[in-house]
């Protein structure tokens, strides 16, 4: 199949179906309501399930219930909605169930705004809900990459029995780009008979399954949390994805940026190169696990004088950049998070001021 022109939100919905997920629950919220609108007719057409829940709180638990009985399931929302789903996400992680959540971020805190933002970095990568858990977080920089990440998310969620989050900003959801749905990213749901509450008859077993996150015995709870920790450590070993840009050059400034913001940075880097200024960039494609070593190595380059975290937030990812740069060079932040996307010219000016 060739490329077709699609709006990001609709492509994300279609990607779920193409990945082999035929169950979708959602609650409308701008700027991603088009996913629900699209799937409200496309899911039944594909033989799947669409249900609009009464709130993001309820949708979170519809996802939990469906996932816990072994079915592939996903939802999409935007920042305030993800806050409400975060309770369920914590339970799903604690009970070790796979599920896919898409957050098309808008500005916050509170109602914030409806324009693009990256201000949910902390929420996605450091928790959001309560307790010791992590999500595998992927951040697309184009509609095509959003499609691929959604398709990759289902087998990854099943591999780790953990929720996976696709963290896109409002631009990813709202813009139209040519996309194709790679056949090789289709996947079969894994066998979940050893843990899912899919009914004893279904798995022809006399052993009942129990999906829970309550461990009143402190030793048992600690054990469960160690199992979770081991999964997160394994993600760090096996799932880190990033894209280096112009890192072969003798750059003095290293930019770390993701999502739509990284595309603007690429333009700035190209323009600066034409002016004779080399800037390198690491674009994390996974925000958790974070490309720690890549950032450290890039910041350790002899020519590198400064690392610059460029993000549509008031400085969230910069804390991870500082942690990974490990004192090899100073780290600065630049960003906006009211819904405006910094322009290439602004980034160029910031880089030049860092050099002066």
């Amino acid at each position, binding site marked *: 199949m060739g490329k077709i022109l699609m709006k990001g939100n609709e492509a994300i919905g279609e990607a779920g179906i193409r990945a082999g997920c035929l169950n979708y629950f959602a609650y409308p919220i701008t700027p991603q309501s088009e996913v629900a609108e699209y799937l409200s007719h496309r899911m039944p057409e594909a033989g799947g399930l669409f249900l609009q829940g*009464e709130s993001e709180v309820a949708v979170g*638990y519809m996802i939990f219930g469906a996932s816990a009985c072994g079915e592939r399931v996903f939802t999409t929302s935007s920042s305030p909605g993800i806050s409400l789903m975060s309770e369920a996400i914590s339970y799903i992680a604690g009970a070790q169930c796979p599920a896919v959540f898409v957050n098309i971020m808008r500005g916050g805190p509170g109602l914030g705004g409806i324009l693009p933002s990256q201000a949910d970095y902390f929420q996605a990568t450091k928790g959001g809900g309560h307790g010791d858990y992590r999500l595998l977080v992927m951040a697309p920089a184009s509609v095509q990459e959003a499609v691929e990440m959604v398709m990759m998310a289902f087998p990854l969620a099943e591999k780790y029995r953990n929720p996976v989050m696709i963290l896109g900003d409002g631009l990813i959801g709202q813009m139209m780009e040519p996309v194709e749905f790679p056949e090789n990213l289709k996947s079969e749901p894994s066998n979940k008979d050893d843990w899912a509450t899919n009914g004893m008859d279904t798995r022809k077993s006399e052993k009942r399954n129990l999906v829970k996150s309550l461990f009143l015995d402190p030793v048992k709870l600690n054990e469960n949390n160690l199992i979770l920790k081991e999964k997160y450590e394994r993600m760090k070993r096996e799932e880190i994805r990033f894209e280096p840009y112009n890192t072969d050059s003798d750059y003095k400034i290293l930019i770390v940026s993701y999502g739509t913001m990284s595309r603007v940075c690429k333009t700035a880097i190209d323009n600066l190169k034409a002016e004779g200024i080399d800037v390198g960039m690491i674009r994390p494609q996974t925000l958790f696990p974070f490309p720690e070593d890549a950032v450290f190595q890039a910041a350790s380059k002899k020519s590198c004088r400064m690392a610059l975290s460029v993000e549509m937030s008031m400085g969230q990812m910069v804390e991870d950049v500082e942690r990974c740069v490990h004192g090899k060079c100073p780290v600065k932040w630049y960003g906006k998070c009211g819904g405006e996307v910094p322009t290439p010219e602004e980034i160029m000016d910031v880089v030049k001021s860092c050099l002066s």
Partner: protein
Amino acid sequence: MGKTFKRPEALAVQESHYCPGCTHGVAHRLVAEVIDELGVRGRTVGIAPVGCAVLAYNYFTFDFQEAAHGRAPAMATGIKRVRPDLVVFTYQGDGDLASIGMGEIIHAANRGEKFTTVFINNAVYGMTGGQMAPTTMPGQRTTTSPSGRDVNDVGMPIKVSELLAALNTPAYISRQSVIKPKYIVKAKKAIKTAFQYQLERRCFSFVELVSTCPTNWGLTPVEAVKWAEETLIPYYPLGEIKTPEKAEGGTDAK
């Protein structure tokens, strides 16, 4: 002569963690007997609430999920929508269902979700230590209403069955009790009817069970039964509150 009274297969061999005089054990047994009689143990998924019955899954021998406080109807919706062939029920108390989970139960009932809810109403929060519930009676003392429930301050107790019955979507809604044998027989019949409606994919089905909590009422088990009968049942009248209109089709095609 063979055994006439035995443990249902759906009920686990398990020491009870419930207090003396608590009626959760009776309600559990009724659910287990019904599941046995309908022969659906192998395709049943129960959902435990938060509250005293959070460990309900320890007493049953089929698949179980554990919900967050009040969210069981949303989880049941998730299961039933993606696996309509499974038999799904939530088991919830009054704090769980009528307070924090009111939104979830109303919308599940209004969508006509084809699962069953067993609602234990004992007019008090149990596990957290006897706090006031939405169903706590006027003047009833609890750890958060030490002078008795003041209805001018916090309103009247909610009659959940009547509230759900007011929805226009067809449903089976029944209020029974498990405090004495004469009530228990009817309660079992209602629970069985509720599961049968589910098997017929007919409607949402809901059985409220007026129950006791001697520990948090500060009464002996015998006094608790008396108080429930004299105070709760007059306010929460027993009987069939709503039955679905005769609907077309809806057979249990597995």
